């Protein structure tokens, strides 16, 4: 019974969060401000999601036909992913990937890619 009550509370909270997100709209700023977990957890989740990117995008940025994503800033990645989510015409694959990521996942993935690129540029 206790567990059922807890599940109901969690479910209501999730519903409320979804509604708030809907009210905010999925604007760029809303996604970039998405409340995450701890920084370490975000980095770990970012790395796990970004592992998916590496199945098609060359990590060394040598890609020609498939554009490199190394060095893109966070906002640009999120913007591009929102465009891919909205339409399948530029790329079927990216449309499918963008649809499968929540706003929160998109935010931590973009931040991870940018942080990693910045770290790579430091001597």
């Amino acid at each position: 019974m206790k567990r059922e009550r807890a599940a109901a509370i969690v479910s209501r909270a999730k519903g409320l969060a979804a509604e708030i997100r809907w009210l905010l709209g999925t604007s760029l700023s809303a996604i970039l401000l998405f409340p995450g977990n701890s920084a370490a957890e975000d980095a770990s989740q970012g790395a796990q999601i970004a592992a998916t990117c590496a199945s098609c995008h060359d990590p060394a940025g040598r890609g020609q036909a498939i554009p490199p994503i190394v060095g893109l800033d966070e906002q640009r990645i999120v913007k591009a992913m929102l465009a891919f989510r909205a339409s399948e015409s530029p790329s079927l694959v990216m449309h499918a990937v963008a649809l499968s990521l929540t706003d929160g996942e998109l935010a931590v993935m973009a931040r991870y890619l940018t942080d990693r690129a910045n770290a790579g540029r430091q001597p």
Partner: protein
Amino acid sequence: MTAWTRRQIGGLVGGALLGVAAPHIARGQGRPRVIVIGGGIGGATVARYLADLKSIDVTLVEPNSAHVTCFFSNLYLAGLRSLASLTFDLETLAERHGITIIRDSAVAIDAPGKGVELQGGAKLSYDRLVVAPGIAFKFAEIEGYDEAAAKIMPHAWIAGSQSELLRRQLKSMDDGGVFVIAAPPNPFRCPPAPYERASLVAYYFKQFKPKSKILILDAKDRFSGQELFQDAWSRHYPGMIEWLPSQFTGAIKAVDVAARSVVTEGETFRAAVANIIPAQKAGLIGEKAGLTDASGWCPVDPVTFESTLQPGIHVVGDSIIGGDMPKSAFSANSQAKACAFAIAASLTGSPQFPPHLFNSCYTFLAPDDAFTNALTFAPEGGRIKTVKMLISKVGESAEARRRTARHAVGWYSAFTADVFGGGS
């Protein structure tokens, strides 16, 4: 024979060697150890992603020093790529990613004792084991077809010497001959591949042996991407490719290697070159280790890819029952990443997040004409279910199809760098 890599000979620090000497000492001290059996797409990806976390000691057991990719091997058959361009030295995984590689085959697994026995006699201990054995063939289902027959009528469904044999046969075939492809029943490795093979061999015939024909004797009544293939065949190779579904022929029953003929329920077809792709099952170590069920494939948990039959052993790639996920290199790579992060979470306490499972395949119809699909999956009720499926459409512009072919080449380069550690 066991061949130790340079890293092991030089350092003698590999956890696996300690394991050989004293498994009870090795386990439980220092970094946890994962052994990966099989250096194909699934195995190499798990090994690489686990090793890159730095907190886990990773040993890869694989008899071959290099891997030849099955994907893109149809381009080799058509003379459009060299086999060398499809071959990846596994040593890169040792040199750049710190994986210990043992060139040997696993012959037995002791699940309760967490040990692996190798053909060369060594015994290794592990904290977690990943088995990625790929496919094996159900030879018995086609009378007269076995490993010896495959040296005359190749399957070419594991790339390498079988691909070379089939290429040689196609090159030496007289113009006007019939190339027979026996396509297997579901489930099998890379569902669009027999039909991509027909397309690309037709491209080769069109240039060099234009009177030749291709006959596909299918064990099925429909196949993956059927409309796209049949549209392309009529555009590029009219009258050259004939597809006979199982309902017309009763499917392949036997081969006569001496006469080079293929026998279906009601007819015998004479082949100038015969490519027999048998029904498939999980690679043999899967069966030996009790990882397979009655289907011949390995059931797994869809989040962690841990065997549902043998705790502590994970299975990824073509050998699993993947729910809706097709048996493809991309699926294997995607499963392997989810599996690596799940193992890391269990061994080191790193946070675990819901897995993202994908498949995307590029399929060539001609060198400058390709189609693609993109699928996303999620675990649901103990199995992997499709969430979204997108596929190229019949009637796309020639420019769109050319662009997809260019993407395919770019994808191949990035993907193999991801799997075999050739990237940054």
